[in-house]
């Protein structure tokens, strides 16, 4: 592998610009005015250098819905979005509830090679919430995160067993917190907006009651719990309490729950339909503060591509979910960096370091230092760009951010010293 020199970068957006020399996949030198020699030079003056992003929550749709996304196209979207590792959710068809599917996803990710694709294993067989999947066999195949995402492990006894069992596997159980009895037929956040529009409500308590229960189960079992896509102010309150008690709980928030709210429902355009639903503007504010404070640990995209016909239809027939990999960093800049809630070191924490820690992922979210893996992302903090769904790398093109101008752009992504994306183009392995 040829050496690389990143010219004029600011690690964590701090201090004077420096040059970073990368050799054999590792950071070899960090100092100003490095002699590049015969190394490839990336001119990156004024760009912010961050550890490569890690997404704990991605739907790559392969196997099963390759018409909306594949491991190849999703990996491209991830690399272009600054990601170096993604966790592929288990709700594929067939479900990733066994070592065979899990190993397939892992192998396809390696073949594509743009990003480390880590399969998430299902907690229960077929995501049906009835019987534990073979967690141990999947753990032996390398799985460290288990989730029935899309469905809640709502049976309290089953959740207790999953948490208990996972403690022997050095794994974390990531819960999609939604009490199904409280969300029968639910279409949108239960609030003033949905009530006027006649959309059946998805009440905040359906999330909060499960999060509270699961925190108590985590305390009871000593297991590690991760809460997916926190969407309500009340959940943040419960997490604050649980962390104060020393309970081993971590949590993620999606970019869309930081930026968008239920004002979006007017017009009934299902590009805004997502589960959990867009909440109120007051919730987004609390979630931003909770993320800044560390009550919510990290940002995860819940990247969920859907075909045009599953979105360009009546609201109740539409599938929930939206693209996220290529817009995550800009949304974090818009909601957290520009208002002064996070500095770039904070961005490194919520997009890279904490998710890598939660998943127990070595080699990602590492400090930017000599001898560390060159798994890095370069961001142009001054760039502004307009989102066009058709220009994103995913097969699905519908996005609620269509036509929005967002700040901050990922320019270059490096995975163990190799450029995977640069100026809007992915670079396949040679």
């Amino acid at each position, binding site marked *: 592998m040829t050496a690389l020199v990143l010219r004029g970068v600011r690690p964590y957006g701090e201090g004077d610009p420096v040059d970073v020399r990368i050799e054999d996949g590792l950071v070899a030198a960090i100092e100003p005015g490095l002699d590049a020699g015969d190394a490839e030079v990336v001119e990156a003056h004024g760009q912010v250098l961050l550890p490569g992003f890690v997404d704990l929550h991605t739907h790559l749709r392969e196997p099963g819905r390759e018409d909306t996304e594949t491991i190849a196209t999703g990996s491209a979207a991830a690399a272009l979005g600054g990601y170096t590792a993604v966790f592929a959710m288990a709700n594929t068809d067939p479900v990733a509830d066994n070592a065979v599917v899990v190993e397939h996803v892992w192998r396809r990710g390696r073949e594509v090679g743009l990003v480390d694709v880590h399969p998430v294993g299902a907690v229960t067989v077929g995501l049906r919430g009835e019987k534990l999947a073979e967690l141990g066999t999947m753990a032996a195949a390398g799985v460290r995160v288990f989730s029935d995402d899309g469905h809640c492990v709502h049976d309290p006894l089953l959740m207790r067993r999953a948490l208990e069992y996972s403690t022997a596997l050095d794994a974390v159980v990531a819960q999609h917190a939604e009490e199904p009895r409280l969300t029968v037929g639910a279409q949108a956040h239960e609030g*003033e907006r949905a009530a006027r*529009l006649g959309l059946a409500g998805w009440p905040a308590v359906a999330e909060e009651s499960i999060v509270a229960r699961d925190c108590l189960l985590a305390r009871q079992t000593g297991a590690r719990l991760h809460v997916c896509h926190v969407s309500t102010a009340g959940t943040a309150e419960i997490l604050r309490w649980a962390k104060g008690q020393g309970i081993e709980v971590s949590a993620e928030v999606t970019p869309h729950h930081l930026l968008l709210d239920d004002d979006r429902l007017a017009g009934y355009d299902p590009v805004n339909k997502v589960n959990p639903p867009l909440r109120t503007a007051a919730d987004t504010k609390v979630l931003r503060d909770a993320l800044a404070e560390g009550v919510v640990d990290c940002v995860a995209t819940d990247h969920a591509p859907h075909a045009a016909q599953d979105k360009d239809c009546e609201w109740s027939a539409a599938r929930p979910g939206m693209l996220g990999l290529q817009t995550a960093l800009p949304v974090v800049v818009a909601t957290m960096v520009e208002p002064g809630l996070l500095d770039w070191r904070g961005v490194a924490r919520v997009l890279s370091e904490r998710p890598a820690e939660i998943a127990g992922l070595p080699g990602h979210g590492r400090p930017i230092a000599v001898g560390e893996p060159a798994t890095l992302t370069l961001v142009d903090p001054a760039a502004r760009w307009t989102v066009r769904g058709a220009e994103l790398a995913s097969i699905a093109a519908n996005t609620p951010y269509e036509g929005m101008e967002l700040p901050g752009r990922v320019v270059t992504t490096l995975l163990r010293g190799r450029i995977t994306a640069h100026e809007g183009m992915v670079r396949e392995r040679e």
Partner: protein
Amino acid sequence: MKHLLATDGLDADTATAVLDTAEELKHVLLGREVKKLPTLRGRTVVTMFYEASTRTRVSFEIAGKWMSADVINVSASGSSVGKGESLRDTALTLAAAGADCVIVRHPASGAAHRLAGWLTEAGTSVVNAGDGTHEHPTQALLDAATLRERLGDIAGRRIAIVGDVLHSRVARSNVHLLTTLGAEVVLVAPPTLLPAHVDRWPVTVSHTLDAELPGLDAVMMLRVQAERMHGGFFPSAREYSIAYGLSEARLRALPEHAVVLHPGPMLRGMEIASAVADSQRAAITQQVANGVHVRMAVLYHLLAHEEEVA
């Protein structure tokens, strides 16, 4: 007016113009042996009903026919993609085939809004004939027409809407239209059948029907759907009927001039006593008759741009 999708956002002038036209049409047709006006000759109106309905579909069909429009009825079962052709494709097909107006009833809230979006380019008008639990604007207009006839004016009147407000598109449309026209609206229902944050609606809320009766100019009873009775929204049909049913005793507690409305179909003995439904105070058949005139007026305002009414 390009579409009629909701009464939310419909201004008082437009609503009054539709009501005035309906009244005019009623007088024009009064006593005529041949109930046919040439106004919409050559216009094609398609009704698309994705939910079972007799009264609304027939009312629209008669309205179109009395205006000399060509009326075509499409009934569809199943509503979502995967069960057959998508709503969007069906709509685009009808527009391409030459429909000037699509009247849609659909179980999904917002379906009429979506249709209007897809049909903007084709120039086809959309009338919402009931979308999920969202709105049913022509029902509210026909209720308003009936109240104007019975009470003279709507402004300043106190009108109760009683029953399952949470799931009622009729209630939502009436709240918006009646308040726009200057009425005071009071919603009477158990807390389980009221929408979230109803306190932010321009209405008052009560859980006690008896307390409201003496101050009302009109009472609008909503149908209690069977699935609600078994859905745990209230303990039993009997208890509901005792607390919220319009009995003969309650009819007597209303002021002399007060009107009883029901959008139908009625559950006699449940939300309304049979004797009340059949009393002179009830305007239920008058509502049905006005429905035709109001829908004629709506079609007129959407489709007959320059022509005279008659």
